[in-house]
């Protein structure tokens, strides 16, 4: 089975969020970048488990400049066989999807896996857009994924229920919590990653359909109103009369 995993290069979950150039760009100064957690813990690890059980290959693809290579090497250290970097700064979700689809078209991937969203732009756009551009079915928010007899079976946590869906390969799947356990790369993986193939391909022509023109930070929160523990019941009263939420 040939699996393609979409890997996004994002600021660490604990990174300070600040903007520069009159609040028009993210201030990446001094920020540690990581593999998007949904792409890593769920999509990539499940892809590796499927490959280990059934054979095949796991390729990752990232759209970004040379600065994304340490993140890509991390994905290789976790166990991907090879990686592709589309050499361009991503313009928007649609542009990323166009680049991924342009590479994946005609490569015969059975399965394209993505995280359910990235933790920077949070758009949940790229997976379904890749599916649309490749004219493939798309299963979103999969919390479990199995493949047997040319067919994928997934469980989705939707509207509080668990929905079990089925679809013939090839298809695109977005992965959510429950899919797999996090894997920490070991020294052998890290050494091996250095020599694994990382192919750099040029971007295809594509224009931004959307632009984030201005960023804002939320207004600072007012100080917490503390209620003494002995009078805890008063909280319910305040929520009813003051906050008016119950």
């Amino acid at each position, binding site marked *: 089975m040939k699996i393609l995993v979409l890997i996004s290069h994002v600021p660490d979950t604990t990174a300070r969020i600040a903007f520069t150039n009159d609040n028009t760009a993210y201030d990446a100064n001094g920020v540690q970048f990581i593999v998007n957690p949904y792409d890593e813990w769920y999509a990539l690890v499940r892809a590796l488990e499927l490959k280990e059980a059934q054979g095949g290959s796991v390729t990752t693809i990232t759209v970004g400049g040379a600065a994304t290579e340490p993140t890509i090497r991390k994905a290789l250290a976790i166990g991907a066989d090879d990686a592709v970097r589309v050499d361009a700064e991503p313009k928007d979700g649609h542009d990323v999807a166009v680049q991924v689809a342009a590479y994946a078209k005609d490569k015969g991937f059975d399965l394209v896996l993505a995280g359910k969203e990235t933790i920077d732009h949070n758009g949940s756009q790229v997976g*379904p*857009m890749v599916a649309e551009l490749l004219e493939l079915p798309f299963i979103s928010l999969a919390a479990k994924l199995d493949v047997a007899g040319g067919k994928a079976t997934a469980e989705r946590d939707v509207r509080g229920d668990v929905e079990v869906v089925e679809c013939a390969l090839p298809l695109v799947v977005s992965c959510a919590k429950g899919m797999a356990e996090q894997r920490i790369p070991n020294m052998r993986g890290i050494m091996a990653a250095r020599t694994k193939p990382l192919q750099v391909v040029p971007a295809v022509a594509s224009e931004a359909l959307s632009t984030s023109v201005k960023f804002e930070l939320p207004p600072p929160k007012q100080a917490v109103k503390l209620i003494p523990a002995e009078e*805890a019941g008063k909280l319910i009263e305040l929520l009813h009369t003051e906050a008016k939420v119950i």
Partner: protein
Amino acid sequence: MSVIVFADTRGAKVAKSALETLTYGRKLANKEGTTLTLATFGDAPADRLAALDANKVTVARNIGDADNQQLARFVADVAAKEGAKWVICSHDDTGKAVAPRVAARLKAGEVAGATTLPNEQGHIKRNVFSGKAQAWVELKTPVKVVSLLPNSIPVEAAQGTATVEEFTGDTGTAKVTVKEVRKAGEGIPLPEAEIVVSAGRGMKGPENWGLVEELAKELHAATACSRPVSDMDWRPHHEHVGQTGLAIRPNLYIAIGISGAIQHLAGVNGSKVICVINNDPEAPFFKAADYGIVGDAFQVLPKLIEAAKKLNAEK
């Protein structure tokens, strides 16, 4: 030219998120001086659809929600027929998959998870960096797609007198099919809950969740938990809220025995009111809270349950 709203109208009653998209669509249509067409699917009775605030309803009776490729073909087809300038979906489990597909199909710019209507410059706000910041987005294309984050705008339900027509176009056969749906049981589904009672390691063990559940029951709330709690299997993983779990934005979020790590806050910082109960006065969660109680959960919870019971009796 018109505004298209794609919404799920199935179920016992039309979901709040669907009504929100109709309100959003109506406001846009008024601003643009045009009409609103609702594109929907499934088995909702025609009289219910006609009463919704749309000028026209196109309903695809023979497609379900499992195959978003079919739904996207349907929505794109309706948009083309109506000469749509805007396509509005909910940023819910279905809309999140359909909106980007429609955008890619129509080569339209998309605002995913919008929280506002367009401002004077036509820019729309959305959350980024897991709610730690917001971005104003400009769409440059003639057709624009918006998926509206649930609980972002109040519903203004107007009585409609829409004409209802059945969709007869070709959307192909469903490639994704539902094999089984396992109902979660009696509780309120977490993503739709207006009130959420959530607990963490401070509860010391799964056997103590009775108190959390009892408070949730009295407040008509859903229950949630922190990541360590779901990782230790004290609670099912679909209850995990946070950066790598579910992001929720209820009207009220009550966190018990959760320290409030930045990853947890990323999943709940859209909540309108946050209450924190923790025995550690230094817990970072207090900085993000509106109300707080420094105290032992096992002493505080019974007091809250008692007060909630009293309030329910008075209401």
